[in-house]
């Protein structure tokens, strides 16, 4: 059974707001992170 992301969000009572004249789910997040080194296998 599949649904779509919009329905999933609506089920969670997450509704879009206006963003630049278009309904959208705006988000922002802040974070602190250590820069890590990725190594080849």
């Amino acid at each position: 059974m599949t649904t779509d992301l919009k329905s999933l969000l609506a089920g969670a009572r997450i509704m879009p707001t206006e963003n630049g004249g278009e309904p959208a789910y705006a988000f922002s997040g802040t974070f602190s992170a250590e820069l890590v080194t990725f190594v080849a296998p």
Partner: protein
Amino acid sequence: MRRERWRGDSIGAVLALLLAVGCSDDGGDGGGGAGGAGGERPAADMGVVGGSSETFTFTELALEEPGALAGLLTTLLNNNLNAGAIIILVQIDGWGGGGSIILRGGAGQQVAGADTPADFTDDGFTWLTEGDCANADGTTMPCSVDISERGGTQTGEDFTMEGGEIFIYSEDLKIIIPIQGLSLTGTRDGDYLDARLDGVITDADAAEVPVQAEPAHE
């Protein structure tokens, strides 16, 4: 769909945000939104940055000790995917090299590897987002974006990046989420990064993203 080990140039930053879907009671209290991951890994200072029942809720991930990344992300993922959440990771590659700066978006379950607390510079991680990400219906989209030519500034330790659009992939949920209006601003101080990521998922895009009713993750 390919699963391959990412061969990084030298340094990347893995930035984790929690996109909580169906966790409306987390909103705005400043703590505990990550489902206890921080409690299992004391190195992590996690808390809800902002949110309410009407907005996405994000969790701040602060790594305070070297070597905690892999275990932390695994715990973060396991605790939240089962609650219907989506983990957004953004990996930045190419800083300081004078070449392209690549943003790769993906989901935490694709991060695996070993970390060594004594020397975090030799940690290795696998990463899926090189190449295309696949939807459950077989369609694919690129999961990385070169933001080098899309604008950005760097003044001393401060930087801004305008990434346009990036596709976030969740393997467990088999969905690709387009994030538009992406911007990243922050400060890099040596091996540490403080940054803010902004973006939107349009209502129209959300209606086009199919989601399995039950996440495949056990």
